[in-house]
């Protein structure tokens, strides 16, 4: 056993990287759910984003184009969900589950020729040497652009939902679609936009996994991160700040337990591997244990099908 081999600065820097896919996917799902749509297809959208981004990045040699393609691919998938649930009024839970299974299958098909290839590497930002600073350098000023994007989105989503008019309309649609419709707001338009945003975020998150973290393509490489993202949204009571906390907690425990495994600690590997799931859910359950408050924060129309009566 050698705890000295665990460097806290590197640990924090790498937990931010490890958490980013979940953070992005959870933020997207938060917006989708705030509009009243429960999309359980996060896992499917993430993996389709992972392979779309991977293919385009490999073929063009540009990671940036890869991320754009990842967002695009996942948006297309999310819009399938949108058409099925919003226009054809299918059940959101069943359709979301189907979307995940479909996404896993279609990504495996798309990725057949890409197993074992290395994608073009995407450099970290360096901020004119600020990254050389001790401690804060590696944590704050030497990350991949998408990490900054995800942190920016936390603030952006919070600000959007809280202060902008269209954010207010989105929350109103999620709260009571009948009332929003009666006031003349477009329930379908709002929800399609929210679903697409959720898709784009999940796609970028998936691509960050295949282009930066791993970086490689393997089938089923999202390995349940989409489900964790879904759980985090609920336990975070639909608040962006708590989503950040939940995602970083999950990423942090994941990285830590890997480090502990490497350090040869005398805890069974299986226990260590399940610890991120246990600890994240435990902490978030404790935070959101005030039932009345949590119920008040949940969008009241979540998962309900809307059909204009006239």
């Amino acid at each position, binding site marked *: 056993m050698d705890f000295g081999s665990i460097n806290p600065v590197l640990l924090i820097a790498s937990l931010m990287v490890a958490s980013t896919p979940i953070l992005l996917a959870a933020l997207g799902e938060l917006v989708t759910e705030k509009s009243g749509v429960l999309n359980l297809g996060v896992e499917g959208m993430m993996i389709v984003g992972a392979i779309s981004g991977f293919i385009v990045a490999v073929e063009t040699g540009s990671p940036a184009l890869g991320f754009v393609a990842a967002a695009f691919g996942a948006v297309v998938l999310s819009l399938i969900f949108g058409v099925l649930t919003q226009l054809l009024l299918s059940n959101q839970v069943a359709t979301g589950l189907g979307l995940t299974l479909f996404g896993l299958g279609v990504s495996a098909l798309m990725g057949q020729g890409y197993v074992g290839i290395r994608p073009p590497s995407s450099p970290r930002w360096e901020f004119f040497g600020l990254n050389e600073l001790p401690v804060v350098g590696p944590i704050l000023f030497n990350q991949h652009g998408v990490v900054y994007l995800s942190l920016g989105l936390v603030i952006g989503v919070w600000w959007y939902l809280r*202060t902008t008019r269209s954010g*207010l309309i989105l*929350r109103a649609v999620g*709260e009571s679609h009948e009332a929003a419709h009666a*006031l*003349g707001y477009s329930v379908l338009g709002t929800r399609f936009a929210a679903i697409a945003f959720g898709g784009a975020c999940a796609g970028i998150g998936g691509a960050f996994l295949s282009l930066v973290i791993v970086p490689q393509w393997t089938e089923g490489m999202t390995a349940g991160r989409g489900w964790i993202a879904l759980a985090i949204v609920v336990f975070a009571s639909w608040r962006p700040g708590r989503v950040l906390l939940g995602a970083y907690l999950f990423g942090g425990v994941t990285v830590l337990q890997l480090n502990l495994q490497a350090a040869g600690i005398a805890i069974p590997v299986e226990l260590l591997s399940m610890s991120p799931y246990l600890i994240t859910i435990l902490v978030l359950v404790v935070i959101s244990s005030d039932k*009345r408050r949590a119920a*008040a924060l949940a969008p009241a129309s979540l998962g309900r099908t809307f059909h204009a009566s*006239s």
Partner: protein
Amino acid sequence: MNALLKVEGLRKAYPGVVANDDVSFQVGRGEVHALLGENGAGKSTLVKMVYGLVRPDAGQMTLGGEAYAPGNPNEARQSGIAMVFQHFSLFEALSVAENVALGMENPPPMRALAARISEVSQAYGLPLDPARRVGDLSAGERQRVEIIRCLLQDPKLLIMDEPTSVLTPQEVSVLFETLRKLKAEGTSILYISHKLEEIRALCDGATILRLGKVVASCDPREKSARDLAEMMVGTELATPAPRDHELGDVALALDAVTVASGAAFGASLRDVSLEVRRGEVLGIGGVAGNGQDELLAVMSGEVTLAADRVHLHGKPIGTVGPNARRALGVLAAPEERLGHAAAPDMSLVENAALSAWVRMGMVRRGFINWGKARKYAEHVIAEFDVRTPGAGSAARSLSGGNLQKFVIGREILQKPDVLVVNQPTWGVDASAAASIRQALLDLAADGAAVVVISQDLDELMEISTRFAALNEGRLSEPRAAAGLTIDEIGLMLGGAEVAHA
């Protein structure tokens, strides 16, 4: 009078039903105009067309002399039409200011808006705190939010769809004062209501609809409420006539019941005792949210207590649950129709079976006899004139009034010993309400004990043998209803403490 809104030959048909046929009327500037009609007469469809929610199949409208054909509510609002909905179109999780902002075209920034809300709400005597969550407000306060949302747009025409159905008498008088103030400022108001006395007190003109057509227009101040009701119904109206009969022994008794409310905004029952005799209708008045739901739950068995808190014919039944109480003859019809009294997505047959299987012998060895259930549902539909395509229709598809008739009828036809109903005629039109009240009286005359919980004081005075008031979970001493004055009732409603002190 100079007409503000002119409606000519409007028609709207839905599959299987013509909701509006060749409807014409006009509303003058500064006029309060009433739209009257039974449930399903087409009032709501008509105002939805004026507000741009529904497009007419034929006909035209003019507003202030110009052609007016709103494609959606935004256009209607821009033309100066605002609407207060029957079922509040509010968002419970959002604050008052956010709700108001959602009803405006170009809302100012939140802080300025909050200031304006306070300003306008003071000016019209409707105090409101812009920062509060709508979910925490009472029904009357919620309506203020809707009204202020409309007022901030300086509307030329304000549409109000059954605005008083959920208000207390005090709240109604505040509302009327506001409406009169608006009228004096030149705002026209299109007012929909079942409550004929209100219309006579408030409105300058009335258009009466029956089955989607205009059957009359009149000045309601010159007609009696009875005249108006008969114009709506098209036939003479039967007033419920209490039959003379002897009161029997005590059927159901509560003894010092204290229950903490399970609902977020409910009231706890405190030390409630009551007795209701065979042949008696006990009316319980009070403003919503003072323990009505809890009281019903205690009597129906949804909330169980120590055995000796509730007695039926002298036997303790406090621990007995709803189905066993049904078997003993205690039935109940709760207020909330969808979700409490009826399962919204199940058919009327299924809904009939859910409550009536115990007493009507619909279950044998765990299997439901659907033939019997269907027969019973059809019996209720025929007896209580429930308008529906058939017993197979989902409860959700019925209009509120029709579902209410079904729910009440389902319990009454089971020949209960004790029937507890909460708001039996809420949202039901005049003639149907009269027939429900008559059925309750007949039930009592046949020897059942009936408890009617209601916010409609006229209704309670009409049918009650004795009257008690519920205030913050305390029940006043019941008094003989005959001879009670409005002042005494007001005192009972507001002053449970006074009575106890």
